[in-house]
């Protein structure tokens, strides 16, 4: 009995006996690693997603536990990525949970030397006011040459290539209706 137990603890023999000749599976498990389970086993649910980095468009599976992202891994069902992710894609969970992530609005008043706190509602109100006032003060019905203009050249909007199509759609629609023509994104860079 003792001998068979001793033999069982010999990895090479286990590798051969258990059909794991390369020693990549069960044969090389330690008592501790036998008890480990994958993070995804404990997830409450999983949703299909897409990697936010480059434009390859790898499929991602986002595992959620207790209202937080527990794990992000490649989606094997994707015909493009077939389950693979690059180092960036694999680090997506750390990206959405970055230690540097900001969760509160920050405000710097003109000539200020520090950030200040501001509620999201106040910030939205102030930004809307800035846009309305800047537009009113800088509106041009015509160019200096007399051509139709219907715009303000004193406001710009930058960004879009990292955003969703639906978001880009609202940005362009709103800015066009406001007469803001300087709308740009990373396609230039």
């Amino acid at each position: 009995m003792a001998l068979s137990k001793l033999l069982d603890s010999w990895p090479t023999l286990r590798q051969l006996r258990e059909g794991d000749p390369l020693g990549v599976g069960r044969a090389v498990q330690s008592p501790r690693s036998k008890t480990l389970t994958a993070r995804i086993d404990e997830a409450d649910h999983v949703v299909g997603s897409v990697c936010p980095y480059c434009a390859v468009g790898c499929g991602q599976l986002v595992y959620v536990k207790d209202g937080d992202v527990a794990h992000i891994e490649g989606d094997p069902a994707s015909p493009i990525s077939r389950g693979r992710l690059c180092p960036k894609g694999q680090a997506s969970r750390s990206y959405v949970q970055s230690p540097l992530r900001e969760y509160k609005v920050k405000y710097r008043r003109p000539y200020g030397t520090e950030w200040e706190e501001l509620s999201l509602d106040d910030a939205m109100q102030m930004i809307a006011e800035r846009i309305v006032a800047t537009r009113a003060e800088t509106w041009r019905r015509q160019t200096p040459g007399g051509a139709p203009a219907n715009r303000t050249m004193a406001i710009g909007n930058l960004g879009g290539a990292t955003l969703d199509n639906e978001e880009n759609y609202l940005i362009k629609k709103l800015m066009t209706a406001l007469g803001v023509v300087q709308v740009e994104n990373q396609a230039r860079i």
Partner: protein
Amino acid sequence: MPGLGTSFGRGGATTFQQDLQNADCIVIMGSNMAENHPVGFQWVMEARERGAKVIHVDPRFTRTSAMATKHVGIRAGSDIAFLGGIANYILENDLYFREYVQHYTNAPVIIDEEFVDTEDADGLFSGWDPEAGRYDIESWRYEGMEVHGAAGQRGEGFEPRGEQSGHGAAGGGLKHGEPPAEDPELEHPRCVLQILKRHFRRYTPELVADTCGCSAEDFLEVCETLVANSGRERTSAFCYAVGWTQHTTGVQNIRTAAIVQQLLGNIGRPGGGIMALRGHASIQGSTDIPTLYNILPGYLPMPHTLSYPTFENFVGANTSPTGWWGKFESYWVSLMTAYFGEHATKENDWLFGELPRIDSDNSAYFTVRQMLEGNVRGYIIAGENPAVGHANGKAHRLGLAKLDWLVVRDLVEIESAAFWYESPEIESGELKTGEIATEVFFLPAAAHTEKDGSFTNTQRLLQWHRKAVEPKQDCRSELWFYFHLGRRIKQKLADSDEERDRLIKAMRWEYPTHSAVEEPDAEAVLQEISGREIVSGKFLSGYPELRDDGSTLCGCWIYSGCFADGINQTARRKPHWEQASYVAPDWAWAWPANRRLIYNRASADPEGNPWSERKRYVWWDGDEGKWTGVDVPDFKEDKEPGYVPPDDAEAEDAIAGDHPFVMQADGRAWLYVAQGLEDGPLPTHYEPHESPFTNQLYAQRANPRRQQNKDLAEDPYNPVADEPGAEVYPYVVTTYRLTEHHTAGGMTRTVPHLAELQPEMFCEVHPGLAREVGLEHGGWATIYTSRSAIEARVLVTERMRPLRMKDGRTVHQVGLPYHWGQRGLVTGDSANDLAHMALDPNVHIQEVKAFTCGIRPGRRPRGPELPKFVAELREQAHSETT
């Protein structure tokens, strides 16, 4: 993407990544695909496993080169010489795919006799106006063709350029899809093929070697491999990325590849095509549904201050009599109906008179100039980091300091939000926190896991990502921010009688919201994008259903059908193993009309039969009377191969049955682009704006039409070529990305794993250069240009091979990743601070892939010493000029 758009009709990759596995040869140029699109690169590896040749042409030896069967090192910025050399090899040796070229391209078309080529005018085309610094393109036209918008309307008219021409909205004036004068035998001295032959005749292997710094043998091996793997039985593909686009000749780089692929018959066929590898999750989407100044969704043009004074002129000028652009008015009216609902009517020209007008250039770099001049008061930045990611970062940061107010939305506090207390200019004393008047709002954004929405990837594929968790605290999606911002502004202006507020009051802005924070329903927005019938509410199946009478609404006509049958087609995720073919049409949704490989009618011969069994894809089924195959045919389903349009045919009906490029007015791919580009109908080799060399082909050194800021103190240039002082900046510098980082670093320098994997800014130099200037591996180097100086750790490597040029000079190239900035878990100097803001004239893109620099050992000067150091060198260089 006017390079692809003017050539083929649509500004997007012609193929999809998985199809690369069918290629017999893949040329990767202007891209380091293995490191920057690693997961897409698996399809290149699949092809290689099947025996395909993989050629990498690049200034650096990278992991892409290591996995290729052949690497050729060239001087950064010499791509057109190399590709033009390939075109010359094909033409001089009569190796082009004759039947394909005759039927599917504009090779037979005869060009007006007024046209003068760069070969005959020392590097300029006819029509150059040295005063205005631009071309009058009239002499580039097809012979016998009226200039579109004739009858005195030319000034009001049809000159689509930039992104809009990138979508094939050019070539107007053709009647019945056939150009007026052609020579099917391709022998007329003014037919496109013969012009092309003469244009590239001097791009010999020897010239390529002298200009690019490679050997003639290596170059010829590339030509022979490409030709041997193209034709009926075999196909070759090209992959490129910003290594081609970020040049003052960016669009023409891609045009040259488009010419080569047309001559070899590789477009619209499996294993062929041009794969544009884009760098952001939805950069294709943000061009299709643009956050760009000059276009509206679906590449519809923004009205211009100087043209189109009436709606009728505008529609007339943009409607092509033939091809799918013949339905321009229905796309336009459906968009205006989506934007303004019942307020836009036929009687008020769908509010055309109220729309804002653009100038020729209102691009991001224009805006920076305007900021520096104090003309911009407010700026909103959402998911972009210009302080690090844009060329000449200093100019951008100085510009931000002149604003009245700035809104920055991101997951982390990026450099563009912190410029007022933490930036190189604060360090140097050029900016002082207490003197900066800019009011800054930083609003935390939601990540992709915290919102519903679709990205459009590099192969025109819209993929839906579902919200997994709620965003925390103040974090919100851009959908939330812009929706509620618009709602508040509309409330404030609800009682306004001002003329300027008419449009914002008319804007349709009713989207259902859900959750505690009132998040707008992203699917409701996608439904508007896809399009509906107004009265019945029926979801549209595609853009052929759009009407010009206001009875349909559609937010982006090329995306029409992505919500067909009331189903979110972009959210389809049927596993690839459950699908009938590798094309996997039931995974997400591709524009247009879920076609994965576009122009695929060209995969069959003029009679509609596959060119070969091996390259079978889409073909004519005579029994069924329709086109069929493994993909959605990119052709009217029941149009016979032998269809000849009647004289009175219009729009798509005017495209013949053997013309596969259905967006083009003549249904063909364009070797020669008569209309739509700023800097020439054919690509010509020009030196980069900053380069150590003169142009070996022409007296005209660099692209004459490139945009420069000659009068802007913040954007000084290095002396170049044989100008005195050029020796102060003797090396070629090229910037690039690393696998572990993404663009300006906001999404990666903030991630612990990635910061640890690539912790520090570095420069790559060859041992020869290290010896020449005394750089030590692992030590520090200071790299400088007229704009700034940065420091970086030195990586001495054989990968940066020096190139021997014709005059016996050795060119050293310096490689710089551009991911670092002042903030994040790992920090460092920004490579883009060195770059200038001279731009490509078609798309206003900067030239960060090839400019000049100096390099010396040691760290850069600190504090006020830094600008002094840069100025002293600059003055030294320029004093020699005067």
